[in-house]
């Protein structure tokens, strides 16, 4: 009997100090943890954010506060800047040559422009992409690779991997094929695997970039239920083209157009009693 086929319940036996140590490793030290507690209510504070690719302005004076343990949706027409905004929150935009921003973006108590340890920061601010992007290695390696690089012991890695796989509802289906390629899985399963992979490094914030747009309705529903459950203990920001999805899962929704936030409100209010005529037109057209 190999390590990996041990029943899940038996395998999680970390002592409290081990858990603390693990958390410290995963959050890149005490610093992030503390600042997160100070800013418990507002996890992401955006003030006067303008962003540019070269000379082209893509975000224009955004102003926004995102609360802890909530799902916040970003909606708006293609090219309105919502993905750029999302990717600014974990400095992924900053990897694109020619990108720069003005104004402050404060995530987990850190100004993204000032982040020194980008890697620890990105560990705390996880991301799920539009298309599932499992790495070309076994399912287990997909889940444990990052932990291995961050120095987590093999025993702990495997335990975390199984726990996260269970959390996204894949463990029972995949427990006998953890050492097989993830490319044989369905799109929905791959995306849930990627979610488990993102969760394995214990992020405090999860950024979702149209995570279900390539999936069938059933997989979408599964994912949405997961997001709602995850939001009980973390902050989630989701970019979506699917307004019904925003309505189903998001507490607050921001409507963006041409690089600006037109309206940011409780989701129900935004959809049924929008203040701005532009929001009304967009919402009505999309829902029909």
């Amino acid at each position, binding site marked *: 009997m190999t390590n990996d086929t041990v029943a899940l319940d038996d395998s999680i036996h970390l002592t409290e100090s081990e858990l603390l140590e693990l958390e410290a490793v995963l959050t890149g030290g005490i610093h992030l943890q503390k600042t997160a507690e100070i800013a418990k209510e507002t996890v992401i504070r955006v003030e006067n954010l303008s962003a540019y690719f070269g000379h082209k302005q893509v975000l224009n004076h955004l102003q926004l506060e995102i609360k802890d343990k909530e799902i916040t949706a970003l909606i708006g027409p293609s090219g309105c800047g919502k993905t750029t905004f999302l990717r600014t929150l974990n400095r992924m935009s900053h990897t694109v040559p020619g990108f720069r921003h003005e104004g402050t973006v404060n995530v987990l108590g850190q100004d993204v422009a000032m982040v020194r340890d980008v890697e*620890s920061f990105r560990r705390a601010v996880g991301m799920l*992409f539009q*298309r599932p*992007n499992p790495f070309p290695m076994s399912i287990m390696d997909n889940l444990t690779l*990052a932990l291995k690089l961050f120095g987590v012991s093999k025993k702990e890695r495997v335990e975390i991997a199984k726990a996260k796989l269970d959390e996204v509802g894949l463990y029972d289906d995949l427990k006998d094929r953890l050492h097989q390629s993830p490319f044989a899985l369905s799109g929905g399963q791959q995306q849930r695997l990627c979610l488990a992979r993102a969760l394995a490094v214990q992020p405090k914030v999860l950024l979702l970039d149209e995570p279900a747009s390539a999936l069938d309705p059933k997989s979408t529903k599964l994912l949405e239920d997961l997001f709602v459950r995850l939001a009980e203990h973390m902050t989630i920001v989701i970019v979506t083209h699917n307004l019904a999805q925003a309505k189903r899962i998001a507490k607050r929704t921001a409507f963006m157009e041409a690089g600006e936030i037109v309206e940011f409100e409780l989701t129900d209010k935004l959809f049924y009693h929008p203040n701005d005529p532009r929001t009304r037109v967009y919402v009505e057209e999309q829902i029909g």
Partner: protein
Amino acid sequence: MDTQAESTLTIQTLPSYEMRSYRRKVKSIAIWSISFAALTFVMFIILDILLSVISKGVPGLSYNLIATQTSGIAGGLQNAILGTLLLIALSALISAPLGILAGIYIALYAPKRFGAVIRFFSEVLAGIPSIVIGYFGYMVMVLQWGMGFSALAGGISLSIIILPYIVRTTDASFRQIPKSYLEGAIALGMTPLMAMRTVLLKLATPGILTGVLLAVSIALGETAPLIYTAGWSNFDPNLQLVKNPVAYLTYVVWTYLNEPYHSAHQLAYTAALLLVMIVLVLHVLVRMLQRGSSKHA
């Protein structure tokens, strides 16, 4: 009414359906015939080369060929076979690490414009006639650096020739990896270096190895740069890499065909056969690598 008149007019001015279909068939047959003729022509050339190399080279195959060294215009080719292997091994040892690292650098790290500049110079290097590189090797390494005719001077000259191919294939192998892999890794908190090492390199490896093998098969067929740098020796190569001329197969092909002796001609044809055989083996390896990589994805 107007539009009706117009539409009947258009229909009438067009050739009938049968007419058009006939023309199309003629055109299609003509193009197919030309393509087929071109293909046959190319195949004929390849077959002719292969058949003449085989028919003239095979009679020279014997145990003595690989067991004895060349003596004058006769004997075996042991020294040339070992020399060629030594030269391509040296050139691969020098150019593969350099070329792969350079390729990784321009694909993943170099600022866009700088990367373009390096790519441009790499293309230019690939376009330099190999005889010029041989001459450069002679002036700089053989004379100035005092290496003399030697395996090292020849190996370095060959590695200068194949370096751009390795850079280009490494660069291309990394650039064709979808960006989502790198982003996925970085979003987990990996550094670009970690992502490259653990996720991207794996995807690029078949492409890189293909590039190295193809580069080696190019090095294998070079003659001009070696004439200036490697010299020739009737003895097996040894580990003394400088001031020690070395034999190689293309030299045999090049020189011995000009000798007025049957034994010399025979050695030349057999050397050509050996070269073709090694190139074939390398290409089979490349195919196997490519098949393995497509199965993986």
